[in-house]
């Protein structure tokens, strides 16, 4: 486990923790961006170049900005008076800890059976393109329809209603 892996892991986990713990919502969104960047670095470390750059382009370039816009449009940057954690925070934390315990146990128990270090796969963007048009053309078209539906849906959900039809 190399030093690079530990550094990226520290960055990502710190970003994730900060985004869930900080009081100011915009700070949480910016910490989330750090977590996304850490994950993109993980993808690059795993020789998945296309996925890493797509992660930066889509998540940092679009989703993070969307989250920030939503925070500003809903006045989320004012600190709430009742505190930032809900009344049932202990139950939520317990559930999350239980999930992590189960997952960690499963991983550590099956660790001997997992494959070891394998040589890096040489994947070019051309292969990804061929796969998208060849083997995965149906998911591609369905995702296109889904994105169109999401675009139209988000606009309709978020727009003001017309005065007469309230």
């Amino acid at each position: 486990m190399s030093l690079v892996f530990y550094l990226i892991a520290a960055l990502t986990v710190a970003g994730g923790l900060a985004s869930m713990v900080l009081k100011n919502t915009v700070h949480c969104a910016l910490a989330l961006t750090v977590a996304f960047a850490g994950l993109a670095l993980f993808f690059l470390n795993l020789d998945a170049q296309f996925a890493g750059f797509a992660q930066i382009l889509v998540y940092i370039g679009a989703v993070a900005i969307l989250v920030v816009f939503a925070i500003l449009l809903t006045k989320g940057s004012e600190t709430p008076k009742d505190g930032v954690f809900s009344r049932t925070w202990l139950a939520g934390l317990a559930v999350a800890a239980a999930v992590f315990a189960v997952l960690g146990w499963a991983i550590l128990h099956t660790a001997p059976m997992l494959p070891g270090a394998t040589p890096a796969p040489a994947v070019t963007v051309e292969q990804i393109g061929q796969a998208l048009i060849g083997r995965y053309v149906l998911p591609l078209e369905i995702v296109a329809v889904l994105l169109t539906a999401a675009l139209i849906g988000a606009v309709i959900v978020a727009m003001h209603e017309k005065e007469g039809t309230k």
Partner: protein
Amino acid sequence: MIRNLDQIFVLLQHWLVSFLAAAWQGAAGVLINAAAIVCVFPALFAVAVWLERKGLGRMQNRLGPNRVGPYGLLQPIADGIKSLTKEDIVPLSADTVVHFLAPVLLVVTAFMGFAVLPMGRNMVLVDLDAGLLFYFAMGASTELAVFMAGWSSRNKYSLLGAMRAVAQMISYEVVLLLSSVAVVMMAGSLSLTKIVEAQNHYTWGFPHWYIFTPWGLAAFVMYAIAATAETNRSPFDLPEGESELVAGYHTEYSGFKFALFFLGEYVAMFSISGLGTTLFLGGWSAPFSFLTWVPSWIWFFSKLMLSIFVFIWMRGTLPRLRQDQLMNFAWKFVLPMCLLNLMVAAVWRFMGDGWLRWFVCSAILILAYAGMGWSELRKKHIGPRSYRYAE
């Protein structure tokens, strides 16, 4: 001799690296290249600042700076000294960490774009297989830095400027991507070195640059419009228009941080012009086949400075567009033209060589442009404006 002059920087780097042990040579080579980029482009920034102030002055029928050196040539040095020695004022209620990090993030992401631009034959820092995607990923991160700057200042003018800038950058990012996809389709690769190689051929002395094809010219025009909007240059500079918004998202920055914003904006302009020359103007290839003896990096930087000059020219000539006009323009006019251009590029590819494909592709593009323009001009909305989707 000519080949040596063309490869002079590559040979210089190999010579410098040869002083080190073999284990360190790879990393040292990359570091030397990166240091060269970090030194050359701020120097070009100084030249561009002088060119802008003198050029704008001349276009506006005044002299521009002429006191500091002969023809004001030492003005950038004076500007640099001024911005380094000014007091760094941070507003009391500003969010200090985010306020500090915003210009840093902007400059870092602006410089990262240069890593994949081929500045000459064999002169690219990293030859990534998905180079164009890397470039756009770095461009997308710039928007976040702009937002951070505007929000952290706790100033309504800054926030307004930042929101406008981010909305504009997101809209024109789509246009930028789609006009580049036409080039990627024809060259068959996302790697910028391969795109330049695909343009490096000559027929009867004329080069095969993509701008000399109908779909390439349309794509280049749309890329140029999107590039001016991405870098917030006039006529799309409402986010930083002094008469509207004080200074937009960099209102509350002074001294060195303001100089960093200025540097970041110009470096982004250089890198987007560099990408434009790589995609459409043939990168480092010479315009005519009898001029290939001139070193390739001279061609790249000349085309880059020509694009910068066109940016400055547009700033001095065109009036500013209003925010809703430019968003309207992006989504309702340029984006459909971009999609049509993709189809025209496909028609060009599959029609085979000859004069017929020139005629068909040009006809489709000109008819579409004329048709859409006529239908937009016919709608004259007179009455109070209403925004249903943007409250």
